């Protein structure tokens, strides 16, 4: 027995599918840009209000490929005394007491990071400011990824500054 199905049925199916994919990727992208963090850490307070320089916490940014993320101990040097009553700091204290690392969610990740090797040190030594890639962190109460970190974006800068555009500079 044959059941006739009108072709527009397929069109509707395909359209519904596309909308579904778009919606999914929208929420996903949003989530990737500003993932939910285990502690509501505010860069705004630490940078604008307290006046800490970036290197206070991201200690290896000038000497290593990775900028470095502060250890729980670093947080606790101040927060043993500062703002102990805040519920967010209490979360931090709990991690410290359990001797567990804070499972921060990564905000800046290269799309094909498996095959890309980025060096913070090289870019700092080339006199780039943190702001150039990370945006105005000092006004972000919740950290958010600013550029998409796609290769075209890297290349535009590399070409404009007339620095190496050899694949092997980053891919290995």
């Amino acid at each position, binding site marked *: 027995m044959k059941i006739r199905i009108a072709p527009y049925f397929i069109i509707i199916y395909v359209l519904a599918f596309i909308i579904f994919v778009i919606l999914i990727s929208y929420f996903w992208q949003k989530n990737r840009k500003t993932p939910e963090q285990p502690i509501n850490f505010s860069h705004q307070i630490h940078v604008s209000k307290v006046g800490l320089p970036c290197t206070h916490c991201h200690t290896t940014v000038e000497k290593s490929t990775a900028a470095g993320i*502060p250890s729980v101990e670093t947080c606790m040097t101040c927060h043993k005394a500062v703002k102990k009553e805040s519920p967010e700091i209490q979360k931090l204290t709990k991690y410290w007491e359990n001797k567990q*690392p804070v499972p921060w969610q990564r905000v800046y990740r290269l799309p094909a990071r498996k095959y890309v090797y980025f060096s913070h040190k090289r870019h700092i030594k080339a006199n780039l400011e943190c702001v150039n890639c990370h945006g105005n962190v000092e006004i972000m109460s919740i950290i958010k990824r600013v550029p998409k970190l796609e290769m075209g974006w890297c290349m535009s800068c590399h070409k404009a500054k007339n620095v190496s555009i050899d*694949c*092997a500079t980053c891919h290995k």
Partner: protein
Amino acid sequence: MDRRNFLKILGITSSTAMLSSCGVDKANEKIIPYVIPPDEEVYPGKPLYVSTTCTECPANCGLQVKVNEKLYHEQRSLYPTKLEGIPNHPINRGGLCARGQAGLFRLYHPERIKRPMVRDEQGNWLIITWSEVVTRIQDELQKTRRLGKINTYLSNHTNGTISQLKNQFCQEYGFERLPDFELFSHANIKKANQLVFNKQVIPQYRIAKTDFLLSLGADILETFVSPVEHTYHFSIAKKNQHFRWYHLEPHVSLTGVQADHRIVIYPESEIIFLSYLIQTLFRESHQKRNLPFKLLRSIPTYSLEETAQQTGIYQQDLQKLVGELSKAENPLIISGGISTAHAYGLEVAVLTALLQWILGITSEVVNFINARNYENIGTFLDINNLLHRLDQNEIGVFFLSKCDPAGQLPVDWQFLEKLKKASFSIGLADCLNATVRACNMILPLSHTLESWGDAQPFDGLHSIFQPAIEPQYDSKTEGDILLSLLNNNSEFSLYYKDYLFNNLKSRFGETNTSKLLQNGFIRTAVPESELSINLNQVYQFLKNFRIPQVKRTELLVFAPSIRGYDGRSTDLVLLNEIPDPLTTISYGAWLSVSEETATRMSLKDGDEVEVRIADERTKLPVKKQKLLPENVNLVQYGVVRLLSGSYDKRSGELFWFIKDIILSKTGNHVKLPVLSGSMDENGRGILPHVNEHGHEKEGKPWYPEHEHENYRWGMAIDLESCIGCNACSAACYVENNIPIVGRKEHLLGREMSWIRIQPYVQDNESIEFVPMMCQHCDNAPCEPVCPVYAAYHNPEGLNVQVYNRCVGTRYCANNCPYKARRFNWFDHRLPEPLDKMYNPDISIRDRGIMEKCTFCIQRIRAAKDKAKDDNRLVQEGEVIPACAQTCPTKAITFGNLEDKNSKAYKLAHSEQAYRALEELGTKPAVNYLGKKREHYEA
């Protein structure tokens, strides 16, 4: 449209959507900080180096461990990711063999023992705590005391401070410390030196200082005593153009094919050859020292014809050998391995010592002062004694530390059954093996890279073990266990580290101890002593000289292999992935047979035969082996268990061959993973005669020349020095995260090694090796055929493969004349916890991607990064690829071909240099330095 079509389309679109979303990375990635940062010097992106000592064989090479700060399973910690030799270490001088390179596979072995265990009455394993271990052992000791049994302690090659502690422990607890267990104890050499020179030691053979090397059976470049050191020495000796090397062996070995003259000798007839040599040297008055007539007369006299007939050596070879030996200024004679591992082995060793004596022995070539540390090592007499006592139910508590007699002793000695007669056996090991599995208690030992310790590779050299990683499991070092037992300390609060440091400081002082920690080794002075011969003892021995009846029977030879040593390394997966150099077989066991045997029994490669030795039988696939003499059949220790074994009742040396075996064809066929397509270069000039290549032959370039600004990276490989040991290949695997694919893929020809060592048989009389990897051609055939520009030429002359561009068409591999490109057919990840060793500086390739040698681009990038910090160019010697770094002979030179002062440039433009298949016009960046063939013919 009907329902069927509708469902089809629905299915296809949905599954495509599913599939396309599969490759996307997981969105939520964590970034884990430290709770407390370790050292200020430890941060991601910067490796640390720890100096320690290799323990894969008794040679104890110096080791530099590269440790990376890594995130593994959401834990930020330090992990060793690469092992390298300490550059100025007196033993290995920066080099490391394939077994040393594979040490990480033991550290992260999936079968590491994770916690202490004891067997209950039913024979089930119970997990216990360390404090229970102490009380349990004390209980058992009391029980055996009541029974009046003897407690024994057996371990593998042990020296340094731990040996002292063991003695102390054994003394206080009434243990008998048995001589150390090593399968290759070189008992005959030790005994012969005792007889001749009153020194029961194995001397250091300093090959670099000799101008004439005569080796009998000793596989000096593979496993004999200290192979990496010998290999380095050999490469230095080769630089002397008067250096000659004669190697006599009854089979074929990797060492043998490296000699200038490889001479096949009938098994057991070495003694006739040596007698002839001594008598001829005296007759022609070439001796440098005299022997009493009485003694000389006890050595049998053979004529040239008789010797030739009984040893199978051609007369002209014998004459030439005598001629060159008598002219040599500083000759060195080494016998060992297969030549001393038979019924007349002791005589061979004694005559060798005597020959060395009359040719003027000097400590420059045979160094008895800095003797190898073999004094604690027992022989098969000791093993037999132990087995006998086990059989008589005499043994109470039995400690077996770091040794695997159950897995290594001949099957028919039935060690496992006898071990059960000990009242309580305690196995101490880092990985599970046949011995500890049969014990009553298993104590996990920390790997050497997790523990403190020291060793004394030879007299006057002390080296240290330093931890490069925290113990991964609930394991302890042997020192910690012994200290806790000694002091009845069930909390394990006494640390061997403190004991060690007290000991080191009292022995060497503060400054030398810190030097030891920093450099990994220190040297101390050893009192010199004059070597003298004990003529009377030699005479007494030679008086009862037995002249062998050389009967030629079908032989089964067990030889140690460069991959497995005595079998202890055969379960390291890397050493199975890397092929055996001579046969290029990777996985599994096989029997090498001579061409004559194969013809006689009409055997093809892979045909199965049954080997019958008295009552024991085993089935093995055969591989035809060129240069293997007739009637000699070869298997490797470890790959095949020793079926039946006998030993010399005088010295306790294990015999390496079994006579009167019977081979019969079973009719089955087993596919062998032979990685080399052909052992013949088919006249393609990959290994040209020195006069046969010339730059005029170079093919015309098809494309405009590349311009290189500051760098053009290139390599020179000296084939004269290359011994085909595969150390480079092993180093490459670890450095570059090369997938290990296994036997099944190898059978399909899908091996992944970036460097392959290609053996080529030359004129049926020699085997020569060519390391083949990506040649980084200037006119690379792979580049123009890539539809997505994944293979491209970079401004530094590298032929780069961009992994995330690659779509896997494999056109490049098809177009590569060197067969250097490897395709990832599947995702082959190392299983946990082996994946801890992945190098974080280079990507792990996914399936569907082509890969190949990159000249260790991560090292080039690191050097350039450093140079840029100092605002300069990369200097000579700053970039050393993993292969060049580990090469024991330093055959590989890497450098910048744009820099006319670089060593690589000079070698590339030397007279000897040629490029493989240069007539194709590919302009490779890898230059081979050809063998100086004429000195063979001289």
